[in-house]
């Protein structure tokens, strides 16, 4: 459905706006995480089929006898699992770096952490 595509693109563009414009380091990391969410939504939405009576790709007792199983595309869902885990790992590493920056500089304003200190 086209609403999914437009919504996913809006989330990606808002995340990009937060990375470009904001000055607080934690808000920049939050924008990175928002971009990950938007891309995962776009990846899962590519697999939707517009036939009649398509369901989630789990074989219950009714679908095992059919020769042609009416499922949505399960391959993008499998690729999205990996992408979510990698996004969470990147966010964790970025947040621990922000903790070290605060301990060294005393501030988390991106305009003030430019010079090498001590």
């Amino acid at each position, binding site marked *: 459905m086209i609403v999914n595509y437009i919504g996913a693109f809006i989330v990606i563009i808002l995340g990009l706006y937060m990375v470009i414009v904001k000055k607080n380091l934690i808000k920049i990391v939050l924008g990175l995480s928002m971009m990950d969410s938007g891309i995962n939504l776009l990846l899962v939405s590519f697999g939707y089929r517009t036939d009649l009576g398509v369901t*989630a790709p*789990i*074989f219950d007792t009714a679908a*095992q006898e059919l020769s042609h199983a009416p499922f949505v595309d399960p391959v993008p869902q499998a690729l999205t*699992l990996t992408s*979510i*885990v990698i996004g969470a790992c990147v966010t*964790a590493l970025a*947040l*621990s770096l922000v*903790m070290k920056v605060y301990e060294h500089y005393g501030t988390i304003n991106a305009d003030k952490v430019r010079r090498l200190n001590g």
Partner: protein
Amino acid sequence: MEQNRHTKNIIIKCGNDFLFPITLILGFYVILHSHLTPGGGFQGGVVVAAGVALVFLAYGNEGLKKIFPFPEILKQTENVGSLIYSFFALLGILSATNFCRNTIFNQGTPGDLYSSGTIFWMNFSVGLKVMMGISFMLIIMFKALDTKNENK
């Protein structure tokens, strides 16, 4: 201020005492039934690791130190999980086919709990890995926020 913190701790403490065993059991259920219902190793592991965050919210760093006195054991268990995954992936090479091949798949009818060969064991090892890894990461991050014995 002190009275406010005392009241908030009572509510969260009682909630944690009720919800922590339920979280553990739900996480293990989602890990075990991965080839029958939606879910799997990654999802179940994160559900169990959310229980550790719940314990930190209720009891603080002292309670976390009482329940997990040796965090290094968690990291060693994650390495063991990774080795189990590699061992079951090497079973394909030992039977003259490609890497990561399901060679013991006909050991039960579809629909049983132990039915789909290497998928069951690989899934269990990935669930162990995610559980222990994310709990260890959360414990390290919560220890770094300790402001009681910080010497400036």
